[in-house]
């Protein structure tokens, strides 16, 4: 587990992902690489010396000095509006990491893996999807991705492509508005939706759940109700409702 101190980083690329989220690519000289699912702390320093620190999951994994974050704007936030609206290539900030060994996937296990994302909780799971695909392990992976509507899905295009042979199977769930032609229920994930999308509990999948605190609690409770062992459910919560 490499942690190290604060490292200078430069914004290399920004791309809109949804009406409220942007994918940022950063260059971090000396970056030691990361495992899929890890995060970084980001530190911004204002001209008057005021500093703010926030944690962001990495959508990228592996070696190299380039890392990827995806940031969803919290309208009243102090940091995310800057990262989503104002930051541009060449701007500098600091990162510390990679952080976290708990919510991490590494190649090697044989059993099935279930990924469940709510909203921008997709980011660390996207790193895991990419790592599993690169490791030719995607046949044992499923992803369930719950979003308000199709336009709110970060990595929507990449996930649509990943369904191609060799990719991770994706099940979409919409809580507010579905694309035209959608025949499934629209609303909060319930037991039936989870039962239909998630590997059966008797196959003993390892389950990764990431999203807002309320989403993670709701899904983790339902999974236990459906027979999944709490010890095989890994969770990461990023606050919010």
């Amino acid at each position, binding site marked *: 587990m490499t942690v190290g101190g604060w490292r200078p980083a430069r914004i290399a690329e920004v791309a809109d992902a949804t009406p409220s989220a942007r994918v940022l690519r950063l260059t971090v000289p000396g970056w030691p690489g990361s495992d899929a699912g890890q995060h970084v702390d980001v530190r911004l320093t204002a001209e008057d010396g005021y500093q703010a620190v926030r*944690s962001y999951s990495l959508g990228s994994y592996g070696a190299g000095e380039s890392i990827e974050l995806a940031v969803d704007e919290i309208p009243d936030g102090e*940091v995310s509006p800057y990262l989503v609206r104002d930051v541009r290539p060449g701007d500098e900030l600091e990162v510390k990491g990679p952080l976290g*060994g*708990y*919510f991490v996937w590494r190649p090697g296990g044989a059993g099935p893996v279930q990924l469940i994302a709510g909203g921008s*909780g997709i980011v660390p799971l996207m790193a895991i999807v990419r790592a599993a695909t690169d490791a030719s392990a995607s046949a044992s992976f499923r992803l369930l991705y719950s979003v308000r509507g199709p336009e709110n899905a970060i990595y929507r295009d990449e996930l649509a492509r990943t369904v191609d042979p060799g990719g991770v199977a994706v099940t979409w769930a919409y809580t507010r508005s579905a694309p035209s032609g959608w025949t499934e229920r629209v609303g909060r994930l319930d037991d039936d939706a989870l039962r239909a999308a998630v590997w059966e509990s008797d196959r003993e999948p390892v389950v990764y759940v990431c999203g807002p605190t309320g989403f993670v609690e709701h899904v983790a409770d339902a999974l236990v109700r459906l027979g999944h062992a709490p010890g095989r459910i890994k*969770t990461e*919560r*990023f*606050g919010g409702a």
Partner: protein
Amino acid sequence: MRAENAGSVVDGNAAAGLLSEVFRGDVTMLVGVCGGCGAEAALGETVVELDEVAAIVRCRSCTHTLLTVLRSGDSVRVVIGALQEIAHR
């Protein structure tokens, strides 16, 4: 993404960076035992209340405060609460 987690309730994963100032290496995999109820859990699974100056780390089973992490300028201090035991498992 963990987003705007100042002043919010998150989990032990979000305290990893702060605790790395005091503990060497990753703490989220360490398994702690709560002195309040005896529950065992990885620190990544604890309840964390986070703001600009402190992270209050609570037991998910009984809500006792296991430890509090205080940030002051560039220094970080850990005040041990109900945390009875911590180990790599």
